[in-house]
């Protein structure tokens, strides 16, 4: 059989498998994972647009807001600027017991927000006295891009694509074994490696399409409520490059995790073991020696992300350490490195698939 004929077989297998991956009931959860951020970004966009409409009826001149100083009382502020767009009070319950409870009690807080036509002014009171005042745009594009970077790196790469690929690629062989249908594929006149390639291709196409479009839609919805001028500048400078690299990172994450979970599905019966191990391995990757860092999917794909994610300064030291990105490689090295890692894993998988046996009794 010629290689061209084998390639046609790969495509036939992938085509048949694709229908199952895209339209099976189980895929609902993968779609949910991929498009959940888009729903949240959409809600955020609606909220920003709604607020913008609402605020325009309650504009307070910036000169009035400039005159307000820290140390002013709530009453003074409300007399000078009687039309806040938002007024929120917090009276925490006292729960600390013991003799030092009074010293450590949390003060009553009040947040007032004003709109001067272009910026939102946020005033923070403690026990009725103004502590801080800051003005910022209703929707900060830079901040939103940072948030998206965080969503992409922490949610998409570490959770959604990770668990999504776990579901999709484990299902390709181990799922068929559990369904007692793997023999159907083993009884076709195709090399096991061809079968592996076909199934991997199907999983990869599905994962890239689902997660790529999820990430792209989230990105588009993040841009939706932004100021048109800022958007114009963004597209003229970094826009296309950001879209390209986020898409590339999502696709390469699917390539990498897909191969790892496909191989795990062939080598191990229990997916929890690789899931826990790989999750742990990827989490601690940032603190591993340089050589070991290169045996991680995140090491390569995080290097492709155009915006570094924000780090919560309140996060515990250990968490910050674990989430710290590894020493980043260059983009070319990241792509080639990940492809080399994938090729290595797929080679191991191709060895395993040759020897895998249909033995449903032990599942």
């Amino acid at each position: 059989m010629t290689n061209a004929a084998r390639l046609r077989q790969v495509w036939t297998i992938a085509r048949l498998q694709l229908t199952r991956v895209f339209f099976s009931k189980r895929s609902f959860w993968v779609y949910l994972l991929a498009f959940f951020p888009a729903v949240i970004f959409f809600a955020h966009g609606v909220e920003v647009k709604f607020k913008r409409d609402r605020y325009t009826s309650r504009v307070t001149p910036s000169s009035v807001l400039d005159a307000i100083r820290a140390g002013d009382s709530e009453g003074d502020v409300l007399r000078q600027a009687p039309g806040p767009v938002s007024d929120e009070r917090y009276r925490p319950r006292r729960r600390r017991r013991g003799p030092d409870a009074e010293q450590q009690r949390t003060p009553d807080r009040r947040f007032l927000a004003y709109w001067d036509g272009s910026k939102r002014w946020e005033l923070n009171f403690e026990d009725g006295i103004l502590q801080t005042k800051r003005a910022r745009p209703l929707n900060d594009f830079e901040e939103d891009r940072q948030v998206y970077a965080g969503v992409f790196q922490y949610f998409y790469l570490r959770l959604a694509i990770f668990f999504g690929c776990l579901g999709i690629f484990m299902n390709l062989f181990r799922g068929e074994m559990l369904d007692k249908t793997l023999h159907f594929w083993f009884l076709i006149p195709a090399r096991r490696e061809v079968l592996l390639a076909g199934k991997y291709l199907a999983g990869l196409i599905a994962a890239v399409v689902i997660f790529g479009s999820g990430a792209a839609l989230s990105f588009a919805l993040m841009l939706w409520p932004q100021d048109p001028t800022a958007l114009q500048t963004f597209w003229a400078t970094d826009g296309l490059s950001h879209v390209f690299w986020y898409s590339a990172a999502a696709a390469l994450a699917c390539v990498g995790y897909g191969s790892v979970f496909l191989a795990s599905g062939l080598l191990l019966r229990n997916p929890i073991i690789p899931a826990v191990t790989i999750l742990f391995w990827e989490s601690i990757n940032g603190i591993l020696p340089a050589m070991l860092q290169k045996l991680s999917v995140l090491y390569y794909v995080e290097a492709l992300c155009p915006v570094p994610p924000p780090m919560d300064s309140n996060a515990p030291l250990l968490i910050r350490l674990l989430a710290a990105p590894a020493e980043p490689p260059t983009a070319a090295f990241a792509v080639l490195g990940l492809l080399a890692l994938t090729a290595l894993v797929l080679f191991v998988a191709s060895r395993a698939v040759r020897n895998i046996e249909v033995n449903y009794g032990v599942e």
Partner: protein
Amino acid sequence: MAVYKRGYQRYQGPLTSPASRLLVLPRFAWERLMQQRLISILFIVALFWPTGCALFIYLSHHLDLLQGMGGAATAKIFDINAEFFFIFMNAQATFAIILAAFAGPSLIAPDLSNGALPLYFSRPMSRSTYVLSRMLVLVGVLSPVTWIPGGLLFLMQSGMAGWDWFSANWHIGAAIVAGFFFWILLVSLVAMASSAYVRWRMIAGALVLGIFFILAGASELANAVLRVEWASAFNPTRATLQLWRALLGLEPFPGPDEYECFAALVLMIGLLAAILNRKLRPVEVVS
């Protein structure tokens, strides 16, 4: 009716009590679980942290053993208070999730995938009894790594610190037991609902982990994008920690308070119970 009269006679001897019948399933399940090497290893690993905490409590009452480390600063480090027990509970909660992910799905998924439910339900056993007996298995598995070591640590501290400490802090002991029981209930329901939902033992285990990790990620995502804090209530771990802080009398985390978190957790428990109710039926649906 000749055949009936001659050949069939209903059993009229004594039956075991419903309570003891409830324990039949857990008894066999415990035995089977304990034969798994991985579960044994996880058990042992899960007891490292309580052992370390016990050592810490001991040292806190014997600071003289630490040569050259006297003084108020050291005493503060070794202060055994509600925060100490909160940290202990936090770590053990993670082990409980991992143990439930490995042990939980083997309880229900095989029954569903092998069509064994009709066999159970053709006995004097209702669906709620079945769920309860399966949950008892997880209570038995998770207790030795949660409230039992927690309670022992509390008793150890009480014994070493004296009656005054106990009378001032008895609520910590109650919080440990109540908090962990609530956590066991939640984790068990997640494990059982996952295995009832996917019917695959192996996949259900991964799903248990996925639910806890992904809900945590999704709630943080919603908080970050919408610039809110209420989404933390839908992170079961975070919501439970908030509840525990309230039970322990600690300052709450920022975000939804303990009542809101409790409401979200009750909602989640209701949802999981509904999944079990829908999936645990002695019928086969051909799709």
